[in-house]
């Protein structure tokens, strides 16, 4: 019996100490980890879609609640503002739509007037050599300078975007994601600037 | 009577006289038509590549024998054969160090690390080739045009090897006469394009009983059948079965590579299963894989299954004790 109690006590103490230390470690590193993830995952895309800023868009990020998911939890969305001399000149944020094989996540840069400054594909699972070619500048470059009123559709659907040959589905996915980003721009702009 | 000098040994007291060296040299001899076809379509560079790969193989074998002794044996011709086979599956466009590196890997990692001929689980030729293919896909897959020396005109149908043409544009291969593929008037690796030459060599191997019909026939037939089924399912997407068996390394693989001694099963049923595995995997890899040619990987995979297939024993006469 003594043994048993000792076993339970020791294990409990070890577990408790462990939990304590770990939760402390978790707290201590949380900020830094979030920053790192964004820096390495998002920064290359942000750099690709925004130009001419002098701040760290990641440090200055604004987190917005954008509706709720199926379970009623709020969806948080990071908006990365590009500033020049302290003034916001453009925003970059992610958007996603389904391609041929699941989600294609894109980063869209939009200047303060609602004009696209750049589009970059962050993640996708399209077929190498086919759908995967939507990441190429030849495709993403087409979006630069477009606004919401432009026909943001692939040519097959009557728009002005040339789809990657042999990969209509993937192209369509990207275009949809970009369009969705533009559609929410005015709302986001208001919240970020205020 | 005086005791004469008598030799004593265990029975039997005779031997067929058919030795490893003879088998290897005959097997290499079967490559003569193949090499000639390589020269016919791709010119002197074909012989240069063969010489480089065979020369390196012999040199490495010699070195290994000097360093570590038997079972390495430069005189038994197995290294020569390995080198020649490796040369046959390269194009004439590769730089000179490719056959050298390939032979080096084939003889050392592919062969002698495992205790030499007959003990290496994977075809040493294909191990050498796969090292190159994985590392230098672009170099290995740069194809020369076929330029027949005489008799035939340069092909008007193919500027790419048939299998690449198949992947790029299925329609383009449909109007090609099969004879074009049969004679090998297509871009490709130097020893694998000419089905005619390979069949001649293969027939010699069969005639000399170096190989039996089981592996080549089940390999080619199962590939044909599987391709036929797919073709029936959707002829717009999948190539015709006859195209599959006449193009690429199918014939060369079935007669010369899949039958490499030591890496293929030895029982009749085992050989047939092995051939079927090779055939079906070839078509699968050709159709859905990222590598143009399925034959080498199919053979390597089935090499891996050989010890298990060899567990299918021929019916022992009698129950087990």
């Amino acid at each position, binding site marked *: 019996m003594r*043994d048993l109690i*000792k*076993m339970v006590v*020791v*294990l409990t103490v*070890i*577990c408790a100490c*462990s939990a304590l*230390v*770990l939760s402390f*470690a*978790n707290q201590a*590193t949380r900020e*830094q*980890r979030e920053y*790192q*993830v964004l*820096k*390495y995952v998002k920064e290359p895309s942000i750099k690709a879609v925004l130009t001419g800023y002098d701040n760290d868009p990641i440090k200055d990020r604004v987190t917005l609640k954008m509706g709720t998911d199926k379970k009623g939890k709020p969806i948080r969305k990071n908006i990365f503002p590009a500033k020049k001399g302290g003034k916001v000149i453009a925003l970059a944020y992610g958007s996603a739509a389904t391609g041929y094989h699941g989600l294609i996540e894109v980063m869209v840069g939009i200047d303060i007037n609602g004009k696209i400054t750049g589009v970059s594909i962050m993640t996708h699972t399209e077929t190498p050599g086919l759908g995967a070619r939507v990441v190429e500048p030849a495709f993403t470059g087409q979006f630069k300078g477009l606004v919401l009123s432009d026909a943001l559709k692939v040519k097959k659907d009557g728009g002005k975007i040339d789809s990657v040959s042999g990969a209509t589905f993937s192209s369509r996915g990207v275009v949809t994601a970009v369009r969705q980003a533009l559609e929410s721009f005015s709302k986001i702009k208001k919240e970020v600037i205020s | 009577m005086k005791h004469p000098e008598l030799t004593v040994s265990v029975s039997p007291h005779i031997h067929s006289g058919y030795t490893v060296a003879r088998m290897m040299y005959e097997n290499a001899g079967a490559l003569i038509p193949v090499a000639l076809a390589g020269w016919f379509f791709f010119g002197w560079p074909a012989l240069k590549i063969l010489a480089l790969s065979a020369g390196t193989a012999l040199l490495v074998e010699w070195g290994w024998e000097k360093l570590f002794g038997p079972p390495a044996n430069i005189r038994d011709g197995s290294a020569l054969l390995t080198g020649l086979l490796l040369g046959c599956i390269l194009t004439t466009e590769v730089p000179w160090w490719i056959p050298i*590196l390939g032979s080096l890997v084939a003889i050392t*990692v592919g062969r002698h690390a495992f205790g030499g001929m007959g003990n290496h689980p994977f075809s040493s030729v294909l191990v050498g080739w*796969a*090292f190159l293919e*994985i*590392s*230098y896909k672009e*170099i290995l897959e740069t194809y020369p045009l076929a330029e027949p020396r005489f008799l035939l005109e340069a092909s008007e149908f193919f500027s790419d090897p048939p299998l690449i043409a198949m992947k790029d544009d299925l329609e383009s291969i449909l109007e090609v006469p099969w004879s074009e593929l049969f004679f090998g008037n297509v871009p490709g690796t130097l020893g694998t394009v000419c089905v005619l030459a390979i069949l001649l060599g293969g027939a010699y191997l069969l005639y000399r009983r170096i190989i039996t019909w089981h592996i080549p026939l089940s390999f080619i037939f199962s590939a044909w059948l599987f391709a036929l089924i797919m073709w029936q399912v959707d002829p717009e997407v999948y190539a015709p079965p006859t195209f599959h068996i006449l193009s690429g390394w199918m014939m060369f693989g079935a007669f010369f590579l899949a039958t490499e001694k030591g890496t293929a099963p030895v029982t009749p049923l085992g050989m047939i299963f092995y051939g079927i595995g090779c055939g079906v995997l070839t078509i699968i890899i050709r159709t859905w894989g990222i590598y143009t040619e399925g034959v080498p990987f199919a053979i390597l995979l089935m090499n891996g299954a050989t010890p298990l297939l060899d567990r299918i024993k021929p019916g022992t006469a009698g129950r087990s004790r």
Partner: protein
Amino acid sequence: MSVAREFTKGLWDEIPPFRLVLGLCPTLAVTTAAQNGMGMGLATTFVLLGSNVLISLLRNVIPKKVRIAAYIVVIASFVVIVELSMQAYFYPLYKVLGIFIPLIVVNCIILGRAEAFASKNKLLPSIADGLGIGLGFTLSLTFLGAVRELIGAGTLFGRYVMWESFQPLSIMVKAPGAFVCLGLILCLMNWIGAMQKRRQG
């Protein structure tokens, strides 16, 4: 054995994974480059050292029956700390090592040292043991990573060092290269071992 001996044995006589054939998965998976190998090695060393210290200190407190569970908790706690800090401060390495960071917890070496050494020895030898084995592991992984990186990519610690026309044998940084390369190094170790033995008589 002296403390120094406990330390040095991990650097040659029992160097993992070449002599002590354990912990093969991270060895094979992360040694595509010298830097990755070194990072993995150091992370493992940290956990090894930490768990050796703690287990050595607690060795008289932990009841025999629950010792394995206790060790696992200790080791896993250190792994989580490594995981969190790497994510915070060495993100690219964290990404490259990926799933193999949490897998340090099942690395056969660590539990092995806890059970075989730290649970029976005082603090100082346990530190020496953990450091020695850990550094040995780091050296091995760095070496294997360097070889694979050099032949497979032509670089060393990310810097290009081969001649200009060199075409890397990129199979070396893929799965087959990992296995074959480690196999050949083990062969080399066997050979060296045999040479040493012969010299000793």
